[in-house]
């Protein structure tokens, strides 16, 4: 029961370590790093490796941005399995990531509540 907390911490932390290495060693900007991680998540799901990782690490795998690539690919693959090539497209349109809608919604709410502050 408790092991899920440990695996979530460790796996989530390790994915962030990969991100940090892309920052510091590969000298990528944050945007490039996040795009790279999303593509990695998507490819891992192509090999069927990301879902087992979620089973193992819970939010350690669903909270890092890699899971966004996984979610999109997973939706596309699930539809493709049923409907063939056309499913690749319909599957992607069908998947709505709660991350994006939540970000849009809360960002718009934040506009009314907050102002940027340039403090340290």
């Amino acid at each position: 029961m408790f092991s899920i907390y440990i695996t979530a911490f460790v796996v989530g932390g390790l994915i962030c370590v990969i991100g940090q290495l892309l920052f510091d060693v590969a000298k990528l900007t944050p945007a490039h790093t996040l795009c790279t991680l999303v593509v990695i998540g998507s490819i891992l799901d192509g090999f069927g490796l990301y879902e087992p990782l979620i089973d193992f690490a819970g939010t350690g795998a669903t909270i890092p941005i890699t899971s966004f690539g996984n979610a999109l690919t997973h939706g596309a693959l699930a539809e493709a399995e049923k409907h063939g090539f056309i499913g690749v497209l319909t599957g992607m349109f069908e998947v709505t990531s709660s991350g994006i809608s939540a970000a849009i919604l809360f960002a718009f709410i934040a506009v009314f509540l907050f102002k940027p502050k340039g403090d340290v």
Partner: protein
Amino acid sequence: MIIIRHLLLFLSLVFLLAGCVPNEFRFENRANQNISQAEVLVKEDERIKGAAALFYDDHLIVGIRVKTFSRFNKTKIASELETSLKELYPELSVLVSADSKILTETTKLILTSKDEDVKEDIHELIALVEEQT
């Protein structure tokens, strides 16, 4: 100090509320089935460290907890177990899930035995498992 105490209180509360089901094997027979076969099958699987199984009417619902490093394959383990249980009990509709929600809910069903609602609850659980993300 006060913050730490609050934090500890909060954490223990979360753990408790999280349906912290101990790692044990619970089998409940309310369908006049021979459950020993299932018991042996589940207990002999080394990857499984806890389970709750409920035979009710024409349903068999099993929630399992797999060992940490077997979690990578937990969907596969559950579906393997489901196939073998279906072979053992061809007349029952079998549901096996490695999802901790199913384990806690099945445990709850076993512990709070009010016969009237069980059928409904089981159908609810089945719907829950089939739900897509």
